[in-house]
């Protein structure tokens, strides 16, 4: 399969001079299209920081990120936003839904931003919410949904616009184990249909559901499995 994510000698450091703290130390990795990769490691190992660089939410201090053949370093801020809109999907640890938007509206926002009509955006959003078994909760506000339901809305939002890569940052951290399994089951189904997924997790049980586990320790990749 073609390489969809290519990270070359990525360094991420915070601060300057003596106060500089290097979180990622010369990391290189490749992920193929259609892969389900789990990034694991202990708290503070740098796994989330690595995902932020790969998903263009942050800029590395050094090194190159190439996503689907596009050199991310060359993109201006607006271009990075556009790139994320059309190619990437995100599932955040704390669901990150807009509190004043219903489930349907939350999912429709990226579709509207892509230029789709409201009717088309709502249709696609409905399909996405149906795929995570929330067809009955379209008009509910996040505050009217359980944690598991909110995370499923977040997943629906991340896949509704058909991203090439889905990034998930500790998607089960705030969920009970039963709900966590349901959410990961959805990821598994998506991956079975060909969706590339990069998931950060610190729970070994959930990491085992991925095709490959990349373990990060002290800013270095210590194992590929």
């Amino acid at each position, binding site marked *: 399969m073609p390489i969809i994510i290519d990270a070359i000698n990525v360094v991420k450091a915070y601060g300057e001079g003596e106060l500089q703290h290097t979180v990622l130390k010369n990391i290189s990795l490749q992920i193929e299209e259609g892969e389900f990769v789990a990034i694991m490691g202990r708290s503070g190992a740098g796994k989330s920081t690595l995902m932020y660089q790969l998903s263009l*939410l*942050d800029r590395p201090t050094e090194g190159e990120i190439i996503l689907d053949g596009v050199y991310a370093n060359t993109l201006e801020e607006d271009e990075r*936003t556009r790139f*994320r809109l059309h190619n990437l999907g995100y599932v955040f640890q704390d669901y*990150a839904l807009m509190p*004043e938007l219903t489930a349907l509206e939350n999912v429709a926002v990226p579709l509207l931003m*892509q230029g789709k009509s409201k009717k088309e955006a709502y249709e696609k959003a409905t399909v996405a919410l149906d795929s995570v078994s929330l067809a009955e909760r379209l008009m509910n506000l996040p505050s009217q949904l359980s944690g598991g339901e909110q995370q499923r809305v977040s997943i629906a939002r991340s896949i509704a616009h058909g991203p090439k890569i889905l990034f998930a940052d500790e998607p089960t951290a705030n969920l009970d184990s039963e709900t966590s399994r349901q959410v990961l089951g959805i990821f598994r189904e998506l991956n079975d249909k060909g969706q590339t997924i990069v998931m950060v997790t610190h729970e070994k049980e959930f990491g085992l559901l991925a095709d490959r586990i990349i373990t990060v320790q002290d800013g270095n990749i210590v194992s590929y499995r």
Partner: protein
Amino acid sequence: MDSLRVGWFLALRQIKRSSIWTTLLIIFIMTLTFLNLVVVGGILVGLTAGASLAYERQYSGEVFLRNLMTKEYIEQSENVMRTARSFPEVAAISGRYIQGGKVEANYKTAVGPKQSPDSIGVQIVGIDPVSENAVTGIGERLISGEDLKIGEEGYVLLGKNLVEKYTVGSGPISVVVLHGIDVGSRVRINVAGREGEFTVKGIIKSKVGDVSMRVYMVDAELRRMIGRSDKNVDEIAIRLVPGASATQVRDGLKAAGFESLARVETSRESQGTFLDDIEKTFAMLANVIGGIGIIVASITVFIVIFINAVTRRKYIGILKGIGVTASAIEISYVLQSIFYALIGAGLGLIVVYAVLKPYFDGHPINFPFSDGLLVVPIDGTMLRAAVLIAVTIVAGYFPARMIISKNTLDSILGR
């Protein structure tokens, strides 16, 4: 275009689903700001407008003729008034005879060597009561007693400010006043070297100094006292039919050649530049107060939007993270600001034109020297509304821009 659409989508839902109390509070502040912009200036300008209107209604009429500075009276007065009456715009005319004189009270009781009667130098005005009432409604301003009647002799009306009883509590308008005088009292009038005793028939109340500082008697009696037999008057006040143009009538009288016989002016012109200067001063003051109001409003909107954006910084970061452009988010905040300003100004307009204006028209503010009106011309009011909306847009944009321009990841992680 997509940014505008998404900005609208987000703004609409934020307004609809945010706290109703917060929304009401912001709108309330915007409404008060708008009222501050419009009403404070309107009252200040209305203070002089009220004085000017009273001068016209109670004294000068819309068009006012006075003797030339070089003449003692208006020559050919009968001809002037006859011509003026032929104008279709003219509804009524009052010619007034005026002579400087002296009015005295207590002249019978002040008999001791160190006692002297109250004595005031005043203008004695001879009027035709019917004509004067048609022009100025002088009878409506009686606070005590009765109006004069044609042919009635031996009676006078006194301006309120001449009488001690009616000036108490209204400030030091006149230093010298007539003590112990009321309706039915006798006063002595000395004019053009002749003296006569008169009974006070009524007291006139007016905030126009020219009205409340005069003594009025029937014109025939004053003419006899001052020995004027030619019927030339000193003032001609002209009341026009509603909607008629004062400048048109003034120009008509000038065109008839009366400019050489009298000062022919509109009421406003006859009030001199002093009132214009005061009005300009108040307008400037109103603009300063309005400017401060605008600054307060812009700071208020800035703070409201800034707090809103800061508390929603994480969500702003998430929106940017999932691909919503910065301009779409900025537009959503600007649209919210416009919403607050539009509703605030709209409510302000309703309050001004449906509540305050009709109220102040019916119940003028009782200022010492005028009955103040609320002057709120629609063009000026709309301009202020536009200024408020424009300032609000700017005040809403900058705080949103400040938050939105922060690093996306920092916003998401709240660092």
